[in-house]
């Protein structure tokens, strides 16, 4: 055992290249700009849950990797997404996080748009006649939108492969839980954490770090975890059970409260490349979506989801179950945020050089394979190996 010199500290860990990651992936501004283009600009991502737009003309806004979006359910019932920018002089069109509006009228010169993105009003438009500006060509920029299992997916790239090809079956395992009855978001939290977006992704893929959480140390056994991988860097894990009564003050979760196709003590997780996670704890579900702001700042959007039409008492119980682990006042989510910020403090300054993701347990238990799958896809899309992205 010995400490290391500066030169030794620069040396990559003595493990296969696939089993460690350079700190540059978190901190380099050029890499961040490329991620925005090659990853966030081209992959499907969850922009909302359908229950946030139950009625015609309901809308939600969402800043996705610094691209403002507005998601609207049209009068025809279809969910569409637009870049939230006025066609006239580019002003941000819709500011409210959510609402209901048949038309969106820009505050600036009152150009207006309908729920299908068509420009339907230009005040004093006769002055455009001379140059022949055609209002039918002044619609909003539509963003590809697809709904699967209640999740509203969007893709900024009109040329990207379709959603089903992107997902490669990664959502199939959630068919019964998310596709049986109607679900509803009851918790929405947007928290900006001072960390690179991948540091949060890792909290949902690092099976080893459950040792950090007192609630997980007490309530769950990790050796039974089984990891499934899908083309495109998606993952799901199954086989973990939770014994909630092992944590002081907590009771069991009843079968009557279980989500469709779930046992109340199930813990199942799905990770959709690059930035989303679906977590199911028997009676309640959480969905995380990450929106990078800068290399060092990330908006984490966490939703809590239950059954639509729950009695008030059941809803309250489900909220309590949610809040045990998840939410800003929970006993698990803040610990993950702490961990993500702690790694940022060293990688952002170059003080730390590498992270080791070398645990091998045959994709079971506390194998680091989920992070290796993620970084393999990251490397493929970026055209840069995660272990040496700047080719130094």
């Amino acid at each position, binding site marked *: 055992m010995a400490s290391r010199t500066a030169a030794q500290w620069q040396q990559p860990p003595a493990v296969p290249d696939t089993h460690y990651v350079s700190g540059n992936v978190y901190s380099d501004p050029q890499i961040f700009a490329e991620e925005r283009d090659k990853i966030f600009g081209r992959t499907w991502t969850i922009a909302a849950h359908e229950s*946030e737009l139950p009625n015609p003309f309901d809308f939600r806004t969402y800043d996705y990797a610094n691209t403002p979006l507005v998601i609207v359910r049209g009068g025809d019932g279809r969910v569409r997404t637009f870049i939230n920018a006025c066609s006239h002089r580019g002003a941000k069109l819709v500011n409210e996080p*959510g609402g209901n509006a048949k038309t969106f009228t820009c505050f600036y010169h009152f150009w207006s748009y309908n729920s299908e993105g068509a420009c339907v009003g230009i005040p004093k438009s006769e002055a455009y006649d001379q140059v022949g500006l055609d209002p039918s060509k002044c619609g909003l920029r539509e963003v590809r939108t697809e709904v699967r299992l209640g999740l509203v997916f969007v893709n900024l790239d009109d040329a990207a492969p379709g959603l089903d090809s992107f997902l490669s079956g990664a959502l199939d395992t959630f068919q019964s839980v998310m596709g049986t009855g109607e679900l509803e978001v*009851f*918790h929405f939290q947007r928290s*900006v954490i001072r960390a690179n977006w991948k540091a949060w992704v890792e909290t949902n893929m690092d099976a080893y770090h459950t040792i950090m959480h007192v609630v997980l140390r007490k309530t769950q056994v990790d050796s039974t975890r089984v990891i499934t991988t899908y083309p495109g860097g998606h993952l799901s894990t199954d086989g973990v059970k939770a014994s909630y009564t092992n944590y*002081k003050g907590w009771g069991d979760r009843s079968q009557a409260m279980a989500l469709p196709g779930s046992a109340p003590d199930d813990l199942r997780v799905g990770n959709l490349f690059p930035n989303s996670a679906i977590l199911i704890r028997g009676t309640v579900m959480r969905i995380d979506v990450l929106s990078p702001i800068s290399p060092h700042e990330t908006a984490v959007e966490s939703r809590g989801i239950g059954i639509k039409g729950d009695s008030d008492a059941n809803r309250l119980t489900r909220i309590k179950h949610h809040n045990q682990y998840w939410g*800003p*006042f929970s006993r698990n989510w*803040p*610990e993950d945020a702490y961990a993500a910020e702690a790694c940022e403090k060293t990688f952002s300054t170059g003080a730390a050089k590498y992270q080791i993701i070398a645990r091998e347990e045959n994709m079971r238990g506390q194998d680091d394979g989920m992070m290796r799958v993620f970084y393999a896809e990251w490397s493929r899309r970026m055209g840069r190996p995660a272990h040496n992205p700047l080719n130094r």
Partner: protein
Amino acid sequence: MSAPFEDIRALIYRASLTLDREDWIGFLALCAADFRYLITAYSPELRKRMIWFDHDLESLKALLDMVPQHLRRHGTLLRHVSVGMIEPAGSPDCYTVTSTFQCLHTELDGTTRLYAVGRYIDTVTMSDGRVLFLGRDTQLETRDLGIGSHVPL
């Protein structure tokens, strides 16, 4: 009997000071047996009020007992409270107290940042000549709490 305004104000301020000191036992001693602590926030995204923290006295005590075992943000919290209105609540000897608060977080290196602002809607009751909390609804304006914390506001 006239309303014990001074005792009620003192209770609200004492609660903040005990919480700032992380004197959980001291805080619980200010609560009636059927106390309920809620933290809520209105979500303009969902157009619904959300419950982010919901504990009766027993589960709050269990939560506070576990605090030392948890990983959590370092440093201290300071709650700055202004008691606004004290109004009679439904039952005799019960009052609704509306206060505004700012909660500031100071890091170990001495940097202070605003953590949350909101209102305390407290229900207080007289018991054996003492004023006690019957309920607290901490209604947050701030919804982005950064890394958050399960320590009550």
